[in-house]
Structures are given as C-alpha cells and as structure tokens.
C-alpha cells in the first residue's frame, strides 16, 4: 500500500536512523541557552541590495565612495555611525562604518555588540583578491534567479536538488514529526531537504478550512487524502493535499487561527513577528532546532533608487529592530541568529537614477551569539580600476558567501570537521569559518 504523507510523518521516529549518516551529531559546544535551542533566520533581500549604500564609511574613506557614485552617494552627515570598523589588512586600513540614514533603529543593536557587518562578501568558488593564480568567477554572476539559488545552495552546489539548510538539517538528528523548516515567504530551495516538507505559510500563520463544519464534507476531503491514482500528478496531489492540511492543523493548534483571513500579512515586520511567536513555541513543537526564511522584495533598484532604497532599508531596519526587541522579551536573543542574504551587490557606478547588477556586497548578522563590536572583512578600494574592480564598479568579493554560511551552520550544530562536505568551495579557502559567531 502506498505510504501516505501522514503515515510517513507518524512513523518518522524511524528517522532516528538517519542521524547515523556520517556525520553529524550535535557537538557539545553547540548547545546554547537554557535548553540548547537554536534557530537560524534568513532575511532574504530579493533583487540585489545596493549594499554599498547600506554600509558607508564615516571617515576619510567616504571621499572615494562619493567619487565613485556622485549622483547616488548618501550625504556624509546623514550616516548613522554604529561604532564599528572593518578589519585592517596588508593594504587596507581599518575603515569606520556607518549605516544608511533609514536604518537608525539598528544603531543600538550594533552598540550592544549584538550585530555586525560582513564586509565585501559574495559568491566565490575560491579566492581571487591577492592571488597570483586567482580562481575563476562563479557561473552566471549577475542573473537574479541563479544567484539567489547560489546563496541558498552553495556556490558549487547549484546542481544539488537540496538547499544548504536542508542538507545541514538532514545530517542533524531531529526528534520530531513536525517540520522544523519554515518559510514565511514562499517555497525556498534553501530549506529543501530529504526528510521534511517545508512549512510554507504567510505571516498570518495557520488558518481555517471553511466548509469542514459538516462531517460528510470533512470525510469527503479525507477520502481523497489516501486515494491512489495511476496518474503521477493526481497521486502526488493527494499527498500534498493531505500533508498541507495536517501541517495547517498542527500549526493552528499551536498558534490559533487568524480571524481576519483576508488581511495582507506579508510585510517583513509581520513575517518576523510571526517568526518570534513560533520560536517561543519551539518546545511545544518539540523542536530543539528551527530554520526560518523570511524575505523582502524590491531591491532591484535600476531606477529611482534614492526613494525606493530608502523605504526598503527603513522596513528592513525597523523589522530587525522590532524582532530584536521581541527576542529579548521572550529571552531568546542568545538562541537566535538572523542574517541577510541578497542576490548580489550592485554596481558602484550608477545608471540614470539607479544601479545595475553587481557582485560583492555586505550582509548583516544579528543575535545574542554575534561577536559584535567590529565588522568582519576588509574594506575594498573603491577606486575605478583597483584590484577589487571586476568591471565598471562591480566589485570582487573577498569573503565567500560559503564561509559565512559555514559559520552559521557550525553555530547551528553542524559538525565542524564536515563543513567542506556541506560547502565544497571551502577546500579552496584557508579558513572554513569566520569568527563572527
């Protein structure tokens, strides 16, 4: 007999066997907080965030930045000084960094040493800057969808059907039948794994199935759940139908259902607010680990960037600041690490009133586990034609996205010795991880 999704979930205690995959049990040092719970929260900035207008030098290095993009540069006196510096290197000095004026609410989080910036990072398959034999550039650098996939897969894992969070979770023992992989922003490759369906919800969480108030209708729906079909699509549809129904039911038990079903609950702050509510329920859900995906679109600012980008960064900053406060209130700050990803950085040189697709950018990381007080990575030389200039102000990253991802995976509990299985690119780098966690 066909094993329905429901049966599969129920019998998933058998999945304990999967933890014997080489690998990966939780290392001792991975255990945090009261009950050792940990959650990763990815905030994806869709479209390619203009990171070089999000993080800007507040010292004399401002001048090089201003010269590169005179029509788009943020006025120096408006920048929010967050009291951190980039790392000095052989050729680059420590640069004092500030945030875009729309992000003032994050200043206190940085001043609490609970947030940092990963400077000039992006997709790499091996080091380029400072190498006599630089590695080749990754495939399809400036294509939105493929670069989004690369962030979610790993730079050399595009062909992999699963995302890196999914592969990470497949190797860690999860003692529960309820999926720990949750997206509040659509189905995402990052969360695809071999064991669990990802739970895709809106910020309104679970809701009611209307029409099930009479037994015969409820029975009719359940009748379809376990039907078998010769046709691939119908057969799989029945399974999807059933698993989505039971996911919703479980979530409704935990969170209650939203009365006002048609309200739009898609804003980033609503997504993070629901994330905090779910994190608070982790013990009731039987989770000692959870992975969340939230997102904000609109960063493909080819046009009218000044206004559009300001509004986006304001949403990002306010949503992150509120989330920070909520985590504090529920005493979960040390158990949660939130971080940004984005397709790519944008070109330093402007278009008419916007910017075009670039390569390197900066990412933000926030949470009680973050080693704040400084930024990670060296500030690049923004002069046209410098060794960082791939072409016309598209900057070459110095920190690989996979090094950042590996650092997050290690904090989550993935065994350090196997990080280069999760991210094969790491073999090309001296350091698998960074010290920001």
């Amino acid at each position: 007999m066909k094993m329905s999704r429901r049966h599969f979930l129920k019998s998933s205690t058998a999945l304990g066997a999967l933890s014997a995959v080489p690998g990966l049990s939780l290392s001792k040092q991975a255990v945090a907080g009261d009950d050792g719970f940990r959650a990763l929260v990815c905030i994806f900035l869709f479209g390619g965030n203009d990171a070089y207008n999000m993080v800007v030098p507040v010292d004399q290095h401002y001048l090089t930045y201003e010269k590169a993009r005179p029509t788009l540069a943020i006025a120096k006196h408006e920048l929010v000084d967050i009291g951190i510096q980039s790392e000095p290197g052989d050729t680059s000095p420590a640069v004092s960094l500030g945030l875009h004026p729309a992000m003032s609410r994050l200043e206190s989080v940085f001043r609490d040493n609970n947030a940092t910036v990963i400077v000039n990072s992006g997709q790499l398959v091996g080091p380029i800057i400072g190498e006599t034999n630089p590695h080749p550039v990754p495939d399809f650098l400036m294509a939105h969808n493929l670069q989004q996939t690369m962030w979610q897969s790993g730079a050399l894992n595009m062909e992999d059907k699963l995302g890196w969070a999914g592969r990470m979770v497949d190797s860690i023992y999860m003692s529960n039948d309820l999926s720990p992989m949750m997206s509040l922003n659509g189905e995402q490759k990052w969360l695809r794994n071999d064991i669990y369906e990802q739970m895709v919800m809106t910020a309104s969480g679970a809701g009611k199935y209307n029409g099930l108030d009479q037994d015969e209708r409820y029975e009719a729906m359940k009748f379809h759940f376990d039907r078998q079909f010769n046709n691939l699509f119908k057969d799989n549809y029945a399974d999807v139908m059933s698993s989505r129904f039971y996911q919703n039911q479980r979530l409704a038990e935990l969170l209650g259902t939203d009365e006002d079903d048609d309200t739009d609950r898609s804003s980033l702050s609503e997504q993070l607010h629901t994330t905090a509510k779910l994190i608070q329920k982790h013990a009731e859900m039987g989770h000692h680990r959870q992975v969340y995906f939230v997102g904000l679109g609109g960063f493909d600012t080819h046009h009218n960037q000044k206004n559009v980008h300001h509004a986006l960064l304001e949403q990002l900053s306010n949503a992150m600041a509120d989330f920070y406060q909520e985590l504090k209130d529920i005493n979960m700050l040390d158990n949660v690490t939130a971080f940004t990803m984005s397709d790519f950085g944008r070109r330093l040189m402007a278009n008419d009133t916007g910017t075009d697709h670039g390569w390197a950018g900066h990412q933000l990381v926030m949470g009680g586990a973050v080693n704040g007080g400084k930024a990670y990575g060296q500030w690049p030389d923004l002069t046209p034609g410098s060794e960082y200039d791939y072409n016309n102000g598209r900057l070459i990253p110095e920190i690989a996205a996979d090094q950042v991802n590996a650092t997050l995976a290690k904090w989550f509990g993935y065994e350090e010795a196997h990080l280069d299985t999760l991210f094969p690119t790491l073999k090309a780098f001296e350091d698998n991880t960074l010290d920001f966690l």
Partner: protein
Amino acid sequence: MVTTINDPIQAAKFLYRSTFGPKNGDVEKLLDFDGGIDGWFEDQYARQNLHLSLARKVADDTGTPLNESARMSAWWQRSLVGGDQLRQRVAYALSQIFVVSNNGGPGGEGLASYYDVLVRNAFERFDVLLKAVTLHPAMGQFLTLAGSRAHDEQNNTYPDENYAREVMQLFSIGLWELKINGQPQLDGEKTKPAYTQQDVEELARVLTGWRKDKDSDGKDSNTKPMVNNADWHDDGAKSVLGVDFPAGQSAEQDLDQAIKVLYEHPNTPVFISRLLIQRLTISNPRRSYIERVARIFIDDGQGVRGNMKAVIKAILLDEDLIEGHAMADYQGFGFSTRNFGKVKEPVIAMTNLCRALNVKSNDPRRWWDFPGLQSNFGQAPLQAPSVFNFYEPDYAPKGEIANKELTAPEFNIHSMDSMRRISNKMWGLILSHRLTGVEQWTWDRSPLENRVDKPEEYMAWINERIFFGLMSDELHQYIEDLLIKMTEQNIGTDRRTFATLFAIQCSPDFRCQE
C-alpha cells in the same frame, strides 16, 4: 500535426488545454464544427476581445478609477465568457513568459494595455510579438528600459542592463545553448552558456534611447509604445552574440536588428515552445514532442519562422496528447503514461469551475474580483512577484517527482497557506448560488436541486457538466454513494449538494489535468 479531434473524450481534454475550461455545449460544438478542428482554429484566430477598452468602460460605468480592480474585472469577463477562448488562454500563457507585474510595473491602465499587446499578438509572428512587448511602456517601466541612456562620462553613469539580460534569459534564448529537442548542448560534460556578461553589456548599449511617450495631458503614457530619444542612444558600433551592429544606427534600427538576432537564434524556437507546452498541455513533454513543435516554429510549412498560429496548433494537436504519452522516468527514452498531464494552475482550476457552473456576476455592469486572486491563489494575471513568474519551469516537489527527475512547476505555489485559501475560495463559489450582493457572484443551482433525489440523473449531470465526461469511476462511485447515503438519512438538499460539490472541487481529479 497528424491529429484530429473526433471523440467527446478527446474533445473535452482538448478544451481543458486550449480554453479556460469547457462550458456546457462546447464539446458538441467542437465536434460538429464546420471544417473540423482546423475550422475551429480558424474561427478562434479571427476572434479578439481586448481588455483596456473594457476596463475603461467598467471603471466609467461604476464610477471607479481605472485601477487593478477594473483590470481584473475585464480579465474575469474575458476569461469566463469571452468567445475568443483560445486567444485569451494563450495570452494568459504568454503573460507568464513575457512577465510584467503590478509589482514594479504601472497601474491597471498600463497593465491592461500591456495584456492587450499579448492578446493582439498571440497569433502574430514571434518577432512582431517580441518587439511589441519590448516597446510597451509597462515593460519599459517594469524592466527599466524606459530612460536607459548611453554611458555618461561626466556623471559616471551607464546604460541599464536589466531588459538586455532578461530578454535573453527569459524571453527568447535562455541560459544555455540548446539542441532542437530542448536538451543542453554539451561541451564535454559542461553546459554552454548562451550568452556572456559582455553580450548583456553590449545589448544594453544597443537598447539605449527609449522613453515613454506623452499622453495628451502631457503625462508619461502607459499605453502608447515607447518612443526614442536620439540624444540618449549609444550609436557606436556594438557586437551582440557574435553579430556586429554597425556604428551610426538609430535606436529603432538597433532595436530591429536586436529583435532579429534573438528571433533567428537557434535556441529561441525550442526555448519558447517548451514553455508554452508546459503552460498549456503537460508538464513533462517528451523530447520528440518538444522537437516537433520547435520545428514548426522554425518553419510552419510555408517557410515562415515563428508563426505563432502554427506553433500553438502544433502544441495543442500533438500526437503525444492523443496517445497520453509523456517523458519517461529519469528522462529516459520511451514514454510514460503515468507521467502524462499536469497540476492545474490554481487560477485555471477556478476558471474551470466557474465556467462549468456558468457563474455570473451579480453586478450587470462588471465583474468584481470575488475570489481575490492575488491574496488567495498564489498567482494572478500580471501580478507575479518578479520577472521569474510564479514558479520555476523546472520545479519538482520533494518525493516521487523530484526523484524521477520530472517537473511539476505548479506545485511550487501549492503551499500550506495557498492550498487552504484556494479551498476556501472554491467553497465560497459553491455557496454563492444564494448570494445577491452586487460585488458577489452567483450561479444557478436548480439543475442539481431538481435531480438531488434521483442519484443517477444527478451523477449524469455532474459528469457531463462539471467533468465533461472525464469523471473517474472511483470518484463517480464515491459521490453517488455519498448522495444515496445522505438521502437515506433524510438530509436536506443544501447539505447534499454542498457535500458532493465540495468533494468534487477539492478532488485531485478536478485539480489536475490529463
């Protein structure tokens, strides 16, 4: 194109693929059509209902602005009751290839006008369609070609690369060099990129110099094709995809040459054909099906390339559809009957139900968006989250479909949340037979009420009017048993009709298409 449609089962299946769903009498009409299936196509090619004029009219008639609500009103009316079903269905498929969205695009007026470009050019030559898409101000705004200008040394600004990239990646040639059957051309074991970043930059230069035209009130027009501004155009020599663009060409000359390069590129026939097959007929076409359509794209038999009439016809009448053949597991040779068909797009499942029940708007002046497509269905016409549409063409859900290296793009939007919302809206439609509010819809339940005590007649009506003869024996049996049991328990008409219709709308039988 060896196929003809001559039995009711094939006719019903054909209508699910080529229209927004059959209505009562459509199967018979198709089978009796003067001139047969060719006659049906000729008749459909000749029909054309536009959206902008209708959206404008409903806005005026109901004293509302020409906004997204007015545009959706026109979309529902055209999709549910328009006589040009094939054209409307193809335009909807094209709207998911040449994506423009209210998310970054203009408002209802500009989008309705853009949709009309797809409606008008659905059966034109591909290059004519591509040029019209490129120059529409909605596209100019959405992918920011409007205002893109030559490199300015003083301000250190560059041409906008957005449209140049997406027109290649998504609207014509795709990412990799392809064989005529859709498989990637390999260089050893590696796929070969169809274009380089250099090509993007050069094409961006070619496409500089366009801006929105002005309306009579002096404002930027969202309906007139873009016009060029010679000062903004980079008229230096360029080279795109190995083709030289001589110096001194005007913006229009450069654009025409660019369209020609993309239209004649060897990838375009197979890239576009496969996307249209997936939208209209089945998710996993065999290589041979893709190749047959691509060859018609290359030459319609009269020496014309990109004849969309011929391409659409080849897609809808392919022999594999009659045989029920799809790609074998693991993309192997041979065929599979199990893998045939697709999951319906949620919007299409809704239009199928509406057309079957002959749903009407309570407002004689217009249709209101009663199902609330965008917030409930995971998709709505011209409301995709980005230029990458609602789903990935190669998406495969976890489990059997992914394991067998097959695809089912529509599963990508069947999330926990949208499954529930779709169910609620379909249920809402079933209950709407008693609704009278002006912004609500309704349908006539009396044929079911009249038959509810006669299970055999009731089931015959359901099979004929909702499934057009395609209802499975298993579902037929279940619904009939349910009806008989409830009748024995003296349960009233409401609960009996509601239970049977609820069971039908949510069934995998109704939500998938073979």
